[in-house]
């Protein structure tokens, strides 16, 4: 029993490692694993893989591309029996982006989500909620302002730094 469980863990870990190599199609600095959209990995003894993947936003066009990229990477590693279940609950939250993912976002020039979506007063829940203070990913200045709540992809807002004057994107806390 213990040995089998250990083998299960080892097989699953191999899949998680491969997911680390699958870039997000819209924010390639992040891996699918960093993004936190893969909620469960199961590998049978015969090598059949079953994944649970949750979409980021309902209308995110990347959802189909993400599933395709996962299949492609696993197939190249020899996994030819892959099932992907789409799960909606619990709904994806930026709280699931790994710390490593947040660091990668910042290095890439995108400000990572500030605070936790689960916390009250994250600015999102209320119409009159204050915007979070988003530090500039380029120079670290706290003097930034929101340009628009919406950006080049569903997950981002547009900001501007008042010190280095660079525009930047903010990965919205959701």
């Amino acid at each position, binding site marked *: 029993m213990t040995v089998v469980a250990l083998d299960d863990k080892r097989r699953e870990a191999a899949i998680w490692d491969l997911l680390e190599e699958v870039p997000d199609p819209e924010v390639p600095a992040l891996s699918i694993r960093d993004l936190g959209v893969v909620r469960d990995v199961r590998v049978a003894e015969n090598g059949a893989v079953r994944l649970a993947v949750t979409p980021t936003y309902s209308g995110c066009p990347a959802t189909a591309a993400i599933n395709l990229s996962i299949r492609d990477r696993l197939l190249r590693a020899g996994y030819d029996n892959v099932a992907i279940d789409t799960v909606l*609950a619990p709904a994806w939250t930026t709280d699931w982006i790994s710390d490593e993912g947040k660091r990668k976002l910042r290095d890439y020039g995108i400000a990572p989500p500030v605070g936790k979506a689960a916390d009250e007063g994250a600015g999102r829940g209320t119409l009159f909620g204050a915007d979070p203070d988003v530090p500039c990913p380029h120079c670290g200045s706290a003097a930034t302002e929101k340009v628009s709540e919406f950006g080049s992809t569903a997950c981002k807002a547009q900001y501007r730094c008042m010190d280095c004057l660079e525009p930047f994107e903010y990965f919205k806390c959701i």
Partner: protein
Amino acid sequence: MTTATDIDRKSLTEYLLRLGDTSLILGHRLSEWCGHGPVLEEDIAMSNIALDLIGQARLLYTYAGTVEGEGRDEDDFAFKRDVTDWKNLLLAEQPNGDFAATMVRQFLIDCFNVELYTSLSKSTDTELAAIAAKSLKEVTYHRRHSGEWIIRMGDGTDESHRRVQRALDDHWIFVDELFETDALDAAIVAAGIGPDLKSLRPAWDSMVDRVLAEATLTRPQTDFPRSGGRTGSHSEYLGFILSDLQFMQRAYPGMEW
């Protein structure tokens, strides 16, 4: 999964189509702004909101097809139904008009959607509850966006104030329909699937009044409310939307790309 146990499949399918149709038609209206927005940021914002709404419609249609059990999928619902089969709110199909009209239409529905999806996220139907919980995160952002514009325009210049007040006056005849209920709603409430829409009104009123006050706008009165969307009686605009939305599938049935 709890589905269609206390309610028949036909009723639940119909209810899901009502929700999905309002999302898709409003999303389609917003998509008409793509490339025509007053400024680049708003062009992007409206396209993003359209994407969210169309995505929500896809989830609702896909689930409706599963519940119905007759093999229809999201494309069948979107592309192969004529005007009287559509059950969206009349407000959603109203023309874009100017930016003020679009934001007023959006704000009134966003405030409704926040209350509706808050309630649906506690539905006894677990799949609908999951779709609602996901949608709620999105419509909360939408309301924040449209609400800020109502305030900015209402409390802005004389011209912007005049336009947004006119848009409010023009759209107010469609507000009562949001909270209107019929026998299907009663069955939905009885099965614990969805809220009594009338019960959402106080929270909606309170949010709308608060924003209108901040925007120095006057809440309109109407003696002549319009309704009929949920039963398929639409304004003349829906046919024109469908002729655009459905053209490819009508001209080249079954085409894929």
